[in-house]
């Protein structure tokens, strides 16, 4: 309806006038229609009655063929001026008499029609039979002029127009004054609302005119205004606070809308990128940051933007290069947080300048590289020195064996040859020489084997440690036969190692345990393994002589011994060998113990070498 957009004042006016007009029109039309209907009914009744009288009177005239008489009878309708034509038709349908006398045939129906009446706009015509004693003698036709009806129509029409016009005029004048009662408060309210929305001044209040619905609306409106005012103030304060927080942040904070346009920009960002906030707002984020969406850290964000995922994920910390206003670049760390509020998605980028840190890192890296190079150099020097030393000691050891064999051989031959010449003292001296030579030979052998273990190539194959332990015990069976030892051997793994060398490890460790429990009436030797995700730790524990923990670090050195030769024989090479072999397998060794309280020797190998947990 076009009325929808017209001002409320006009609307009220139109409503009042339309209602008035409709009511009046309806009333007038119904009265009019009723009057017309009753007028018509009266006309019909009147013409019927008259017809009946004339018909009754004209029976004899028809029966006895007296047209003069019939004319006279018809002429009686003169008394009714609205009757403009009348005619009597004979039995065979011919016109018998007419009124007025000179009426031409063309003005009358050619033939009588069945009884009845017909109303047209201009005339009411009726046919009635002329009956006498149930005999039909002819038909009477009467025609009444309806111009009176037309006249009535005209008068009525004028009246309706007049009434309508006057009423509308009065209604207009009334409504002009009365509609203000309704429209003024609404207009004032509307004006206030417009002023507020234009000036954003929430301190304005609408004027109230009465206690009707508009009055209540005004109250509600004012109440709403105070609430908005309060909320607006709170919002402003909160925003100021938030801005202060944002501006004091050490990171640059940039907020963009879902299309990447910058909608917020804090003080730090101004400093970092050389653009004021006003300047930055509305720009695309790409003027500052390169596109990050394909970075693995932005995976979740990409999924969201691709429409695949409902949940928003913040990015991880992305290192990238940002661009200042002058085109220079700086290293930054960016984390982007998606924020959803009220169905609107914004993205908040936190950007930290890491130029200094980057530089420090680079310096550290450079230093490290330098250091590594130096270490490498030193290691090479050390290695070559070591090799030389080893070669030297090997050759010395090797070369020492020949003179030693001579000493041993000739001392033995001397003992046999001078059997008689030597007294007991002489015999003892020769014996000491022989023993010392033999001992020296063992030392040299061990030293050579140690050296060999340092150089020989390793062949890794899966080896069952439990099998190794069994084998070692079997080799020592002669020695063990005289001993009472309780063995506690736990489950041991199968590992990919050099079988000969690992055999040597177990020979040394188990041999030590057996040796240092010699003075125990009840020796207990425990062998087991602990498996962790990183490494496999194997230990050999005994309740033997133990050692002073103070010297724990010296245990694995070459020729380092904590006990005298007379107490426990040995060369001091066994544990050094163990350590060397384990190191060459990428593992480590250590020991725990106390004097007279037993010792535990551990070696650990990387878990990756394990091929079976228990074998």
């Amino acid at each position, binding site marked *: 309806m076009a009325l929808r957009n017209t001002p409320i004042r006009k609307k009220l006016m139109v409503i009042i006038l339309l209602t008035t007009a409709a009511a009046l029109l309806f009333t007038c039309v119904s009265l009019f229609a009723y009057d017309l209907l009753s007028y018509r009914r009266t006309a019909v009744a009147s013409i019927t009655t008259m017809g009946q009288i004339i018909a*009754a*009177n004209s*029976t*004899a*005239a028809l*029966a*006895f*063929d*007296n047209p003069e*008489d019939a004319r006279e009878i018809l002429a009686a309708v003169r008394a009714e001026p609205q009757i403009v034509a009348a005619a009597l038709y004979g*039995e*065979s*349908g011919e016109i018998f008499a007419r009124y007025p006398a000179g009426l031409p045939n063309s003005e009358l129906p050619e*033939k*009588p029609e*069945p009884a009845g009446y017909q109303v047209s706009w201009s005339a009411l015509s009726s046919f009635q*039979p002329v009956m*006498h*004693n149930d*005999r*039909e003698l002819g*038909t009477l036709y009467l025609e009444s002029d309806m111009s009176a009806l037309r006249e009535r129509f005209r008068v009525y029409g004028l009246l309706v127009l007049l009434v309508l016009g006057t009423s509308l005029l009065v209604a207009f004048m009334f409504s002009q004054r009365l509609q203000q009662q309704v429209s003024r408060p609404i207009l004032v309210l509307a004006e206030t609302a417009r002023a507020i929305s234009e000036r954003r001044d929430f301190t304005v209040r609408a004027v109230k005119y009465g206690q009707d619905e508009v009055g209540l609306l005004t109250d509600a409106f004012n109440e709403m205004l105070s609430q908005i005012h309060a909320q607006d103030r709170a919002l402003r304060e909160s925003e100021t606070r938030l801005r202060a927080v944002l501006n004091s942040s050490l990171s640059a904070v940039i907020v963009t809308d879902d299309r990447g346009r910058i909608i917020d920009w804090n003080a730090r960002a101004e400093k970092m990128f050389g653009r004021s906030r006003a300047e930055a707002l509305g720009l695309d984020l790409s003027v500052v940051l390169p596109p990050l969406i394909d970075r693995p850290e932005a995976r979740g964000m990409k999924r969201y933007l691709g429409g695949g995922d409902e949940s928003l994920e913040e990015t991880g910390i992305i290192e990238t290069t940002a661009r200042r206003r002058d085109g220079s670049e700086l290293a930054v760390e960016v984390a982007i947080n998606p924020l959803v509020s009220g169905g609107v998605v914004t993205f908040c980028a936190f950007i930290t300048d890491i130029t200094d840190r980057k530089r420090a890192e680079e310096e550290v890296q450079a230093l490290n590289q330098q250091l590594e190079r130096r270490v490498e150099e030193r290691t090479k020097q050390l290695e070559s020195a070591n090799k030389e030393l080893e070669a030297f000691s090997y050759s010395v050891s090797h070369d020492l064996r020949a003179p030693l064999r001579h000493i041993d051989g000739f001392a033995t031959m001397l003992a046999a040859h001078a059997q008689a010449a030597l007294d007991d003292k002489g015999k003892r001296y020769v014996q000491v020489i022989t023993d010392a030579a033999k001992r020296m030979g063992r030392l040299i052998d061990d030293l050579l084997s140690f050296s060999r273990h340092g150089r020989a190539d390793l062949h890794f194959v899966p080896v069952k440690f439990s099998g190794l332990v069994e084998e070692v015990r079997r080799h020592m069976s002669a020695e063990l036969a005289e001993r009472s030892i309780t063995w506690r051997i736990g489950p041991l793994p199968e590992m990919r190692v050099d079988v000969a060398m690992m055999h040597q490890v177990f020979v040394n460790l188990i041999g030590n345990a057996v040796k240092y429990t010699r003075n125990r009436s009840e020796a207990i030797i425990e062998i087991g393994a602990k498996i962790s995700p990183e490494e496999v730790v194997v230990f050999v524990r005994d309740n033997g002589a133990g050692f002073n923990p103070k010297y724990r670090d010296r245990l694995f050195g070459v020729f380092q011994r904590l006990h005298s030769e007379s107490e426990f024989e040995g060369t001091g090479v066994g544990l050094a060998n163990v350590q060397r072999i384990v190191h060459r397998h990428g593992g480590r060794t250590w020991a725990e113990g106390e004097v007279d309280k037993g010792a535990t020797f551990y070696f650990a190998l990387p878990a990756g070498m394990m091929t079976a947990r228990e074998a």
Partner: protein
Amino acid sequence: MSSTQMGRFGVQTRFSWIRGLRVWLLVLTLAMCPGGYSSLRAAASAPSREFQIKAAFLYNFAQFVSWPAKSFDGPDSPLVIGVLGLDPFGPFLDQLVQGERVNGRPLVVRRFKSVAEVDRCHVLFVSGSEGRSIGEIADRLRSQSVLTVCDWEAYARQGAIVWFVMERNRVRLRINLDAAKAAGLTISSKLLRSAETVTVSQRE
């Protein structure tokens, strides 16, 4: 209602073509009936228009005149239209009244050769052939409730109640009110209105 009466006295039909059809049916019926010959002849020798009108008037008198009850034998006894003397109407009159009833009484046409035969007659057309016995007729009928009708002046002056007068080629009525009163007949005012009334005194 007989088909013969259709033309003039039949109920007015709504559609003229039906009327036309009925005329044709009449002709067909007459042609095919065994006794149709005489009817056909009667139709062929129909009276002049003047006498057709007069015959119709005779029939119409039965409608506009009241007879005293004693002139009928009973409530259902017929109303008799008589023709005294030479009959100018022929079978036309018979056909006209055949099957018609007035106030429940059937109409009957009787013909009398002399006035002496007249008995139980209600409308009597006295033919001009009876001029010789005018005195006797007047005497005999004066005391009876008979609507006497004639179309000749002599009898009209001697007691006939209704006189058919030809005026400008039209049949007009003159009614002698005294005679009617003497005969004990009540004539409808409508009939009187349509006729010319005279009294004896006026006549003489």
